């Protein structure tokens, strides 16, 4: 089985442009509507930005929270909300630790990131002008964090 890949955000590089939200909505909704983006930008003043999408949790709290069993796990570890079962109660949104789920203002159902299934990788990652987003495995994330930490130590020693 392939290691699961998620969208990670380098908060030093993320500038808060929100183009990931624009692009996501265009590919999924065929219109521009950032409130329907699967990825969410969060800014904490004065200087912190991050974009967050589904983390593919091993035991997704959103699934546990759903009283109608409307959320299922897909083969790649992502979650899918079955629209005809969802009644928009939003318990899953409350349960998610990352704020990765959203309620569609018009259809009143919840939606989640599908990692642009069948598109050869997430479009937000492809379009991010700052290279802040990466579609990668947790193994790779850990390795890169280690390299970064070690580089910092070397710099300090020098």
């Amino acid at each position, binding site marked *: 089985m392939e290691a699961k890949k998620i969208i990670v955000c380098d908060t030093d590089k993320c*500038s*808060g*442009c*929100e*183009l990931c939200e*624009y*692009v996501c909505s*265009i590919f999924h*909704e*065929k*219109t*521009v*509507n*950032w*409130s*329907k983006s699967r990825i969410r930008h969060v800014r904490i*003043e*004065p*200087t*912190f*930005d991050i974009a967050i999408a589904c983390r593919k949790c091993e035991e997704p709290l959103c699934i546990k929270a759903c009283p109608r069993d409307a959320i299922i796990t897909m083969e790649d570890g992502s979650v899918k909300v079955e629209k005809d079962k969802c009644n928009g109660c939003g318990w899953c949104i409350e349960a998610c630790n990352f704020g990765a789920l959203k309620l569609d*203002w018009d259809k009143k159902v919840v939606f989640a990131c599908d990692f642009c299934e069948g598109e050869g990788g997430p479009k937000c990652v492809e*379009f991010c*002008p*700052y290279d802040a987003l990466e579609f990668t495995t947790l193994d790779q994330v850990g390795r890169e964090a280690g390299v970064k930490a070690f580089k910092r130590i070397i710099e300090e020693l020098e």
Partner: protein
Amino acid sequence: MKGYTGKFLRVDMTTGEIRTDTLSEETARKFLGGYGFVAHTLYNEVPEGADPLSPENVLCFWTGPVAGTPVPVSSKYIMGARSPATGFIGFGIASGGPASELKAAGWDGIVITGKADSLKYLYVQNGHAELRDASYLKGKTTWDTEEMIREELSDEEIRVSSIGPAGELLSCLANVTNDRNRQVGRSGMGCVMGSKNLKAIAIRGTGNIEVAHLDELLELCKDLYQRCRGPATEKYRVLGTPANVLVHNRLGCLPTNNFQQGTFDRAEECSGERMLETMVKKVMACPSCPIACDHINVVKEGPWAGAVSSVDYESLELLGPNCGVSDLGAITKAVQLCDTLGIDTISAGVTVSWAMEAYEKGLLTREGTDGLDLRFGNDAAMVEAVRVMCLREGKLGALLADGSARAAERLGKGSEFAMVNKKLEWGAYSLRSLQTATLGFATSVRGACYLRSGSYQPDVKGTVDRYALDRSRGKVVFDGENLYAVIDSMIICKFTRGIYKDNDEFCRVINLVTGWDVTSDELIKTGERIHNMAKLFNVKFGAHRTDDYPPPRAFDEKMYDDVSDGAIILREQYDEALSGYYEERRWTEDGIPTKALLEELGLDVSLGV
């Protein structure tokens, strides 16, 4: 009609009535959006002779066709009204969330008249708009106002454009702030909001933004995003606009000590390079921006520890070297005071530098400054002067609160070194060592302004003799103004102007968004029409040739510094260049559009001669 919602809000602050009006396709095609809509609305709706602070003045908030689309740096809006600072057309453009949110809420713009009997804010959300009580926001800073409105309405995604105490106190320098760091800065739009008892406009939209050819537009945008990461924008991304400090210092055009000199001996200490090294915590972007120029300073130590603000070249230069100040901590603090209390950093810097010169010349006494030792280079005095100016506090605050031209009037002296055109303070470009720039600034419809034509560019690039003027400079300003009128009406960020191959590609963006088939020649003609509409507003309010001159310092005193020593503008050369500009514009020698021109542009010929 794609790219537009085709609707705008009309708000009467006096009666509280709010209704939706229609934006016709004819108006959209003729005036495009943004600056064009402001000029069109104000010309048609501000009654003759209406005082800028009266209920009759019209305050408008407009977006353009690209707001809310993925076009690079397109989430921009403009606010306009008859300016209390100049008496002519006033407007300012800001990036940020309010523009795209308004589009998503279902409107292209808001036109506000009247005056409320108590402090209110306008809340706009998805097809709904209401005036709400803002008494709990009285005297609050812009940053607090944003937070408090979001908290009151339990919605963190609301975008807010608000005024600080300075706007409530009707300072002619008052600005409007959104997203903390973005401002409708110039010509006193915050003052007009204050005069209408309008503390803020809070907007939230979740609707679709309709674009004519979305797939093609996105394909083009992907390419444009890459270009935004290339050499054309490197300056803005790396050092930000403060990169200009050392460049201008080398060229002898860095205004120092109220524009007396063009070089600053401590320029290194407040350079963009030094700022990046010691102050910048993060470089941030506005919504839809692939460039990110917003350099956020956080002061870690010293007397200004804890100060936070986004510092760009104009603010840094005019509150810094132009006041003889090089301490980046003090500059960061002063910018924060301006942004939160609500005045324009450019006008603030030039007003303080005027006061410093008046103080050093003995025209303004220590009693008049409330004991402040207001000499050039006194960091703490600069910061304190900014604070009292914002709050109209004490003798000094009362003197300076409405800018340098009015301060000189109140003092009864010092008007010869008030660095203004149409009573609006000059940007951070020397007059005598950048003479094409000076022609462009002085002919600007909203008063001294570097953003109307980019007329400093040929001077800085060295494609003209920047120490002299001739008739041909008129065309430089004319071409710049027409193109910039289009940019300001679309509205996109001027920092993206270098990423487009040519005007045809510009045109393609508009056509993909709107579904039109406009040519670049037609587009530039539209820019000319828009600029003339703005000029007609000024003519309606009494503009003449005499309003298009730089301050006396340009003609009467030579510069003294290492690079531009002895530089001065010869009055007869300026007269000639100004006539050249009018001729290019097909205006009379008094700067009035001719009937033939207005007819050709499809404008009201009654004011032409």
